[in-house]
């Protein structure tokens, strides 16, 4: 990482505002299941702001690491239904970061197209290993 500029160490107060927004979305999720997401990199938040928000939300029961086009970290905060999703490029730079208010972040689910491709691959794999099986 580069040296944090003067701005990155400043708390702008945005963390508190985002916390309020998350609460409203979480109440909506609890009420009728509606999902939402907040882009943490599109807002003029400093590193200090994101750390403050991370501290306020804390870490919950689930933690996952993905290896897809670089690493991604996903964890549920101590408030169930509030997930933190941090995407990194292959060089480790954060390319996107968001808080998702959902029962399960989309990126953790298997896409049906990937499942279909995997089915083909698995059939080929078994066929290659046990040629006489069919």
């Amino acid at each position, binding site marked *: 990482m580069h040296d944090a500029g003067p701005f990155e160490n400043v708390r702008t107060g945005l963390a508190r505002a985002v916390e309020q927004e998350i609460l409203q979305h979480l109440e909506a999720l609890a009420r009728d299941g509606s999902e939402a*997401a907040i882009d943490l990199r599109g807002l003029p938040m400093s590193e200090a702001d994101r750390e403050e928000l991370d501290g306020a939300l804390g870490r919950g029961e689930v933690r996952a690491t993905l290896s897809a086009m670089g690493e991604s970290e996903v964890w549920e905060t101590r408030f169930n239904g509030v997930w933190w999703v941090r995407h990194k490029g292959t060089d480790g730079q954060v390319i996107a970061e968001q808080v998702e208010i959902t029962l399960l972040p989309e990126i953790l689910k298997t896409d049906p197209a990937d499942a279909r*491709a995997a089915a083909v691959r698995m059939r080929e794999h078994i066929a290659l290993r046990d040629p006489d099986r069919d």
Partner: protein
Amino acid sequence: MDDWVMEQGTVGEALARQGVSRRSLLKYGSYLATLMALPPTAGRAIAQSLAGAKRQSVIWLSFQECTGCIESLTRSFSPSVEEMIFNLISLDYQETLQAAAGEAAEKARLDAMAANKGKYVVVVDGSVSTRDGGIYSCAAGKTNLEVLKETAKDALAILSVGTCSSFGGIPHAHPNPTGAVPVSDIVTDKPVINVSGCPPVPEVIAGTVAYLVTFGKLPPLDRLGRPKPFFGDSIHDRCYRRPFYDKGLFAKSFDDEGARNGWCLYECGCKGPVTYNACATTKWNGGTSFPIQSGHGCLGCSEPNFWDMGGFYKTLPQPTHHHGRDIGAAAAVGAIAGAGTAVLARQRRQKAIEEEGKTK
């Protein structure tokens, strides 16, 4: 791969062939959503749309340019992310990157034009020479002007990448010896998108192409033909030093107390308030920094005539054409004219006195 798995020629198919999962596409969608300031939930829609989208045929023409624009795109910091753009497009002609040379290269361009008539996108970097029939910049025996007209005729849209193709750029700067003009001066019957910058931010080039492929239409454009998602705000409006401007705290020179404190660079000639680009948010080299963060004012490189705006260190309120000689001459002429007017008044008075004397 079975046909039922994926449609041929789509981005999804191209990715699956490389063993790239839909999770990567979803991640890329989130990245693009952030980049384009779309709602974060749009990432999923972008990923779905991209998976089913046909790869866009692209013909890239390089005219009076320095190759900085293509360097910007291909040397960007997060290679895995930026490389995704090459999965969205089929780059059918690019002189610097293509393997083919000579007549085979030109044939690739003509083949792509014939195969995707009316559907291909032409990317241009560099301005177009028009003086003396455009002879100052030629390739393969043809002037840039001819090649542009020929290629643009059956194109879906034109993407001017860089300030040279968008606004004329440095070749267009005074005295403009080659008669350089922007692409939009030549191609007037097709949509032209200007992705300006010297060079443009790589994420902005990729993001604009991704927008075209994802949504199958042009992004909303500002009055200079630039995509609003990236050129909607001025550098100044998104600058982290903006609070210092509002407080009236300015660096007066590059080595004073204000400069060390990271105050606003307006008085050092920063063109941020009149420059529209994504530098202050996207930054450069994978989000590392941008000129103002490294202590230098914005040059305004994504604006027309940035080279001729009176100097990089001249502040915005300062006149660009000021010549003390003109003012001095005005003062001298004023003094002479004033004295002359007074002399005329004296003469009139004298005459009046004389006439009064006669009547007595």
